[in-house]
């Protein structure tokens, strides 16, 4: 009797896995040197291979940056690429608990403050500065002023909120604007003009502008475990591609050219962007950075900036209301209000070859 029930159970279990739909997830990405690899991951079949291994389906969708954040906050997509700052002030501050599973890179010169006519940073007071306000661009500007001891002059600079799709032409054609903060490839395009110099770039604040892949925490903790399989598949696929990207010679170039295609870019231009992007090509390097005290220090700066600029929402009375948890279980902010987590465990598995 017992045996027959057992057999029946096995049959049932077998049939239900055979007929049930595979859990399906959507990853959103937007054009940026450190995220365009997703285009290639999807096209080359690397991602499908890993998804099949973990018995799930992963769809990859390209967005403009701001809409990708909206879609993630609205829970239309399960995973998304974003910076540490937006992970904090968009989903986390909107009450959508978010976990960073991959630390892909940090901006090491991709974002820059450019000026005309050899201006110095102390001359910016009273001048027009074009930038996309309330983003990493304003963060970079804030840091540039602070590190040069000009914090009290920040308010004297006339910030003009300019859409990133028009910022290059707007700055180049308007001689009355003295400075601009933007990112590559726009930076390279603007620097080609005579008389424009770079005053400050993200290479002076290494590790503060991080590019992450995040997953909604409730997706990650799905009771059927499919969320964890998603994280494992993404991590596995990511480091397989990182291995190919970091190589040298024609085979690596072929991969890089195919990635560049994802943003209608050329191999040369993409390589130029990578030169100012500190990619964590190996899971070891990412895990090391993710578990360092450095990360906490940088996140403390970022969250203070977000709070000072009202980016944590009007309900947040204190910077501690949107708390961040780190891999060693330490928390910045109120422990009962953890909204953003850095989880290095999947990258750790990759270092041990356990994926």
């Amino acid at each position, binding site marked *: 009797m017992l045996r027959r029930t057992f057999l029946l159970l096995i049959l049932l279990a077998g049939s239900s896995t055979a007929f049930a739909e595979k859990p399906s997830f959507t990853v959103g990405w937007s054009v940026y040197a450190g995220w365009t690899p997703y285009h290639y991951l999807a096209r080359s079949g690397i991602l499908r291979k890993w998804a099949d291994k973990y018995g799930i389906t992963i769809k990859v969708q390209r967005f403009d940056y*701001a809409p990708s954040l*909206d879609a993630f*906050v*609205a829970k239309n997509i399960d995973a998304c690429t974003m910076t540490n700052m937006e992970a904090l*002030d*968009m989903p986390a*501050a*909107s*009450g*959508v608990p978010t976990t960073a599973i991959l630390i892909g890179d940090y901006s090491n010169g991709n974002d820059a403050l450019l000026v005309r006519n050899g201006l110095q940073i102390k001359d910016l007071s009273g001048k027009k500065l*074009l930038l996309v*306000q*309330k*983003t990493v661009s304003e963060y970079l500007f804030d840091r540039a002023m602070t590190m040069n001891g000009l914090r009290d002059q920040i*308010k004297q600079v*006339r*910030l*003009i*909120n*300019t*859409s990133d799709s*028009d910022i290059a*032409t*707007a700055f180049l*054609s*308007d001689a*009355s*604007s003295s400075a601009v903060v933007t990112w590559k490839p726009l930076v390279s395009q603007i620097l080609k003009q005579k008389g424009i110099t770079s005053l400050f770039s993200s290479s002076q604040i290494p590790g503060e502008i991080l590019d992450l892949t995040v997953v909604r925490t409730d997706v990650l903790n799905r009771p059927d475990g499919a969320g964890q399989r998603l994280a494992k598949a993404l991590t596995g696929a990511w480091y397989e591609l990182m291995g190919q990207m970091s190589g040298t010679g024609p085979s690596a170039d072929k991969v890089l050219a195919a990635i560049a295609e994802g943003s209608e870019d050329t191999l040369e231009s993409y390589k130029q962007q990578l030169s100012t992007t500190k990619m964590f090509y190996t899971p070891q390097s990412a895990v090391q950075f993710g578990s360092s005290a450095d990360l906490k220090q940088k996140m403390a700066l970022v969250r203070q900036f977000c709070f000072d600029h*009202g*980016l*944590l*929402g*009007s*309900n947040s009375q204190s910077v501690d209301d949107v708390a961040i948890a780190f891999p060693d279980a330490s928390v910045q902010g109120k422990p009962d209000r953890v909204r953003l987590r850095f989880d290095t465990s999947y990258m750790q598995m990759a270092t041990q070859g356990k994926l």
Partner: protein
Amino acid sequence: MSTRFPLISAKPSRLITVALSWFLFVAGACLYLYTAAARHRENPEDRVTPTIGQMVHGMFGAALTSPDQDVDPTQPATVVQRFSRGMLWKDTLATGRRFFYSMALLLPAVVLGLHMGLFPYVGAFFLRFVLFFDKIIALSLLPILFIAFGIDELSKIMLIVVGVTPTIILDTFNLARTVPGEQVVKAFTLGAGDFDVAYRVVLKQIWPRVLNSIRLNLKAVMLFLFAGEMIASTDGLAYRIALLRRHMGMDVIIPYVLWVALLLFLVDLAMRLVNRKLHPWFRES
């Protein structure tokens, strides 16, 4: 079998008319409140669909706090003072100023359309070009507008001018052509000159229709104005919305959008009343 009552001839009572006309408003509000409540049950910190309370709170904040951080909030100030320094008022002033400048620039368009319709040489000179220009999607020419007019006020107003004036010109042109030729001839035989005919016979008759046409284009004007403010600016209603979008400040965005709708409705209403007052003989409006 009795004859079927035609629905077209129905005369609903006043009560039913009022109830029907508000039904969709109430249904929309209910649907929103239901969604907001459901989303807040699931996630109390939801920012996508703020509750009424959050929106009221957000709007009070926007109306009473200054966008410039140099104003000391602890200093005592009356509500009126705080409101006049608040971002809602400042944004409305900035957007309103641009709006009225561009409306004023539509008047020359009316004059041009009138002349094109009446004077064959002017028509021959402009018509083909304006017809072509009318089909240009102004937003895609932004880089050229920046080069020609800078990134300050002028480029935003020019964006509206480029986007909306061709429509107004062509509409006035067509209206001017509808005035019967007999009237023009009659005016000439009574001793009128060219400009008497243009301004005192033709323009006077088509003016209420021209005003209607401008009224219908209010939304296009606002659309271009918003696009301009979102692309590059330091103040204005659309500037604020663009900034708030960066951190999902829907608790202020939704009231802002309703505020803009109210303002547009009031401008539209004012134009309709003026039109009726000035042209009591005109029955189409």
